[in-house]
């Protein structure tokens, strides 16, 4: 057929990626140094961890967990704490998803020619929200919102807004531009391009980010209890501190169930969405 003659075959070799490749070398070297320095400077005592003695005391410790406390009164308390944790994390995440979406739009460059004036300040705000751990937010908010789950909910919402806002913005920026460009060429404004072209593409991703954040927040909600923001965490800190191992076991089991439940819910919703 049209098979070219060998004599005419010329091809270029790949462009020498020397500079780029070396950037990569530098980066890898830096990363390696960081990792090595971390392990070295912490002087981790693996020997102590892997010793027979440690295994024994670990075994003893775990043995104390049985039998879990199943007194009905205590179970009621745990159920209440579980519900409070669930509500805190769910509402916190919901608020954060709404606020995050609202902030993600100004924080992303929606298309190539977008000047995106609000991008830098919005990202700064998101970073500030995100860099403060939930626990610290909770401690700050406990002062003005009073003890209890409301402060915890707000703390989760604030921190998670920062996280989700950034993740959403990145998902939006990474969405395939084709559908959006087609509408934009028709003069449709940014908001509606988002609703009709970008959102249907990124929605599963946004949902799965939100759902996975929800799982995170359940664990965070447990931590929040330690500073007095209610939920399972408060019970956990109390009983673990007092060596009530049976009760601790019950609480941990409740936590596991809760996360497994959220995991299943998240998985199910994702399946529904990507069907």
């Amino acid at each position, binding site marked *: 057929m049209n098979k070219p003659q060998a004599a005419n075959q010329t091809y270029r070799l790949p462009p020498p990626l020397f500079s780029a490749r070396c950037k990569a070398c530098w980066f890898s070297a830096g990363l390696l140094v960081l*990792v090595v*320095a*971390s*392990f070295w*400077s*912490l*002087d*981790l*005592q693996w020997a*102590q*961890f892997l010793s027979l003695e440690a295994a024994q*005391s*670990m075994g003893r*410790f775990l043995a104390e967990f049985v039998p879990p406390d199943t007194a009905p009164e205590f179970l009621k308390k745990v159920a209440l704490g579980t519900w*409070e944790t669930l*509500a*805190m994390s*769910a*509402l916190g995440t*919901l608020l954060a998803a709404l606020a995050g979406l609202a902030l993600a739009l100004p924080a992303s460059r929606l298309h190539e020619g977008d000047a995106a004036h609000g991008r830098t300040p919005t990202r700064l705000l998101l*970073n*500030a929200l*995100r*860099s*403060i*751990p939930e*626990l*610290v937010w909770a401690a*700050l908010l406990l*002062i003005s*919102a*009073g003890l209890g*789950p*409301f402060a*915890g*909910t707000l703390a989760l919402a604030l921190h998670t807004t920062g996280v989700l806002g950034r*993740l959403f913005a*990145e998902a939006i920026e*990474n969405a395939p531009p084709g559908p959006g460009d087609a509408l934009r060429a028709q003069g449709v404004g940014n908001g509606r391009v988002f609703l009709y072209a970008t959102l249907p593409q990124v929605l*599963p*991703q946004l949902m*799965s980010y939100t759902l*996975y954040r929800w*799982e*995170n927040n359940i*664990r*965070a909600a*447990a*931590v929040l209890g*330690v500073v007095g923001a209610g939920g399972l965490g408060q019970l*956990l800190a109390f009983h673990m501190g007092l060596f009530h191992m049976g009760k601790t076991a019950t609480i*941990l089991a409740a*936590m*596991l169930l*809760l*996360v*497994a439940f959220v*995991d299943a819910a998240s998985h199910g919703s*994702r399946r529904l969405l*990507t069907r």
Partner: protein
Amino acid sequence: MNTSSVRPPTRDPAWLGRVFWSLAALVLLWPLLVATEFRPWVLLAPESLQVSGHFIGSFWPLAHGAEFLAMVARETWRTVAMATAGMTLALIIALPLTLMSTRVLSISALAGPMARGPFWLRQSVRWLLVVLRSIPELVWALVFVRVVGLGPTAGVLAIALTYGGMLGKVYGEILESGETDATQNLLRNGSGRLQAFFYGLLPASAAELTSYTVYRWECAIRSSVVLGFVGAGGLGQQMDNSMKMFNGGEVATMLLVFMALVALADRVSAGLRKALG
């Protein structure tokens, strides 16, 4: 040509479902608001405004004694080192588990449902990941602290276990949510799983995987701060003290350090994305 004999439908068949689900969402929301005592107006009550205003006012001046700053620098490094070491171990746990659990890389799932064996393997890996991450790192740390005593080992191990679970899961989700046509085409043409991963899946989601990893590293820093609260040392312990004592200046300085760390992580992430994109 377009005088249709078929009459256009007058109703959207999806309508009823939509109304139902919107109402259901509203009905579900109510008990949540009750359970969390959602009363935003208490934030604006004069006494709480005064209390929080007073505390925020004490943020200035920032604590900047040389000794304090040196301590903060030392503890910051400790925190970062704990996070880095924990993340390294977490990656070692997560990578093989991810490859084992991704549905896209399942050959038997190329057509219809997955075969029994691989399905249960995947499912058990998923469960392992669930167990690893459902116990908060704080609890792992409390357990380890009790068993082997204090120090960073407990913190590093706690981060490694929880984050291994989380990374494994989210990597899987990222890989499955992207475009999978290319990967499936490779598998269908008979390539191996790892080959399909490197040639089809990875190029499509490398940027996202990297930025998620950097983000997790940043989360690990925050976690090691939280672990400081139970005695793993680092910035968290100092933060705990200053918070408890309402020492606004110290709190503010440390908050600024957090922000700087997060900004650094962000910068790294953006740079990597650019290099990979």
